[in-house]
């Protein structure tokens, strides 16, 4: 889970990608970064050629901030992705300028504000990053457009829970790494593509282009979902430490869903069902409609306090997700293709004739 501390706002995934390349290299047959910066690792299967391919995607990027203007040495900022400005005040950050410069996020103190202003969240234009350097020095080191990441160490809580930043989606990158490790030891007929996608938080971009490039026969996206926490949300939230969620709905191929569910049962891994009537908001949504369409599924790890620097999860859910993915992939027969229930009657009707 140390990956959560690595730096990788959307569009700035290069340094974490390099770390991941080192981590993945022992387990892969080939590895490449594509034009968008997606890391595409392939683990060759043992089935006969032409070998089908299954792609598992977890996004590498995290939400972050960007410098929009520099005023008297203070940095004006804007979000990269869905950054929640309610949680920014008082945070420590790292400004990726000519060099990495630590800073913190400040705003005017409550004493000088009107009662009305104190009741509102601070708008973007009134948030600043303060790096504690004289203006001339700041102008030398920082430019408009430089990205900023949140500094937050990993924290271990009770009962195997951990907290930190960027669990969305480093938790899934870890699960994907575990699956790669496991599959390196196991026989699998299909080629397995592990893809660390970029720019998910700004529009599923890496998933859309990498799915087109790989053109796999099946795909599984890995992401995080909402953990049950102390507020009044009831639907679409999932208890921690009760396993990953499996998506069902238009974004997911029904037979692929059934097969993954069956695998979870077989492994006695607990899981939740995540009914999703429309857009899943994950890489799965982009992958499914690549080229002529790709049967796609989604495994998600429940995480509390999404898009906050204190995202919290249960370690065991990450391990379960990796194990479930690996066993699913290892179990794919060369001839397997998900079909449709009405095709089954068609085949039955034909064999009757």
């Amino acid at each position, binding site marked *: 889970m140390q990956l959560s501390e690595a730096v990788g706002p959307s569009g700035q995934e290069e340094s974490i990608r390099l770390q991941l390349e080192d981590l993945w290299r022992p387990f892969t047959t080939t590895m490449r970064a594509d034009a968008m910066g997606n890391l595409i690792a392939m683990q060759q299967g043992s089935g006969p050629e032409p070998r089908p391919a299954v792609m598992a995607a977890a996004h590498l990027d995290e939400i972050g901030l960007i410098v*929009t*203007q520099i*005023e008297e040495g203070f940095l004006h900022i804007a979000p990269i992705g869905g950054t929640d400005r309610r949680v920014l005040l008082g945070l420590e950050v790292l400004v990726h300028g000519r060099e990495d410069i630590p800073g913190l996020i400040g705003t005017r103190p409550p004493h000088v504000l009107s009662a009305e202003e104190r009741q509102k969240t601070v708008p973007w*234009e009134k948030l600043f990053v303060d790096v504690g350097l004289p203006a001339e020095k700041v102008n030398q080191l920082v430019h*408009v*457009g430089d990205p900023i990441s949140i500094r937050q160490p990993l924290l271990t809580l009770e009962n195997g829970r951990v907290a930190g930043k960027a669990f969305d989606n480093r938790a899934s990158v870890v699960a994907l790494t575990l699956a790669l490790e496991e599959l390196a030891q196991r026989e699998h007929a299909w080629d397995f593509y592990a893809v660390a996608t970029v720019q998910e938080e700004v529009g599923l971009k890496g998933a859309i282009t990498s799915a087109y*490039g790989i053109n796999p026969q099946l795909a599984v996206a890995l992401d995080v979902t909402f953990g049950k926490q102390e507020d009044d949300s009831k639907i679409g939230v999932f208890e921690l430490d009760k396993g990953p969620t499996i998506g069902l709905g238009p974004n997911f191929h029904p037979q692929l869903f059934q097969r993954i569910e069956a695998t979870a049962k077989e492994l006695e891994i607990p899981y939740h069902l995540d009914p999703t009537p429309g857009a899943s908001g994950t890489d799965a949504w982009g992958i499914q409609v690549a080229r002529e369409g790709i049967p796609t599924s989604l495994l998600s790890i429940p995480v509390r306090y999404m898009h906050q620097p204190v995202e919290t999860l249960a370690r065991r859910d990450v391990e379960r997700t990796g194990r479930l993915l690996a066993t699913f992939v290892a179990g794919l027969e060369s001839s397997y293709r998900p079909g449709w229930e009405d095709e089954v009657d068609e085949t039955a009707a034909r064999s009757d004739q």
Partner: protein
Amino acid sequence: MNLGLLTQLTQAFGPSGYEDKVRALIQEHVAPWADELRTDPLGNLIAYHRGNGKGQKIVLAAHMDEIGVMVSHVDKEGYLRFTRIGGVYPLHCIGSRVRFADGTHGVIYLEHREDTSPSPKLTQLYIDVGATNKDDVPVSVGAPAVFVRPLVQQGERLISKALDDRIGCYILIELLQQVQDSPHDLYFLFSTQEEVGLRGARTAAFSINPDMAIAVDVTITGDTPKALPMAVTLGDGPAIKVQDSGMIAHPKVRQLLVDAARKAKVPYQLEVLRGGTTDAAAMQLTRAGIPSGALSIPCRYIHSPSEMVDSEDVANAIKLLAAALA
């Protein structure tokens, strides 16, 4: 600055989906300089410059279309209701004039309203073409129209309707003449339907399948009264895109443009835009992904009928791009 050409370009009729007249005009100006010229199924005009076989395959895109309105209903009294083509703001419309393809002019005004919200809704506006009743209206439901406003030059500033993005078209036309020796395979893409969702560039980029794509479009500035923080100023040089709401520019493309600015010794600015995007956002997602970026011309009052750019920024953008493609 070829003001004659820019006047023709900005004044041509070309709302999204109906770019024929702009296309014909551009075609006339690029034909002598292009090795090949074609129009694709969505109406994009693609002018090709053949390189020496050692360069890269690069798309440069500027969109031909402009925002406008389309008649959605004609009432009994002969007033027209309309819908927007692209990002048309009701506040900009009141008192504006629009022109239809057949030359009919109309005035947009606001019906009497009881609600006191600062901005009216589009449905509270109508077009008056001077008709006395329904049968007297010369245009019908589905007819598109564009805003009317001439090009004016005042000092270094240029003011007109549709500088978004005819100024980009202008730059590409001038640029094509200057890059005749470029080693690269260059595709000058004059795209359609940008204002309604980056549509033309998306399909054109699929057909061309380039190694790199650069959009040339306008961006907003932070130099007007009480503007939100934005480090782009009119006249301080073309802006090299870092990020906008639709795209993060590929670092390689951004660096190429920065290096070119230094080489050409032209001033430049870096751009982070909160709202809005360009054709590059669509081209980026083509096939397995195309490294994409954008060069922006700082522009005040975008999507109003009086957009304002600086002619030095325009000249510097041409120099910058010529250096990048040399």
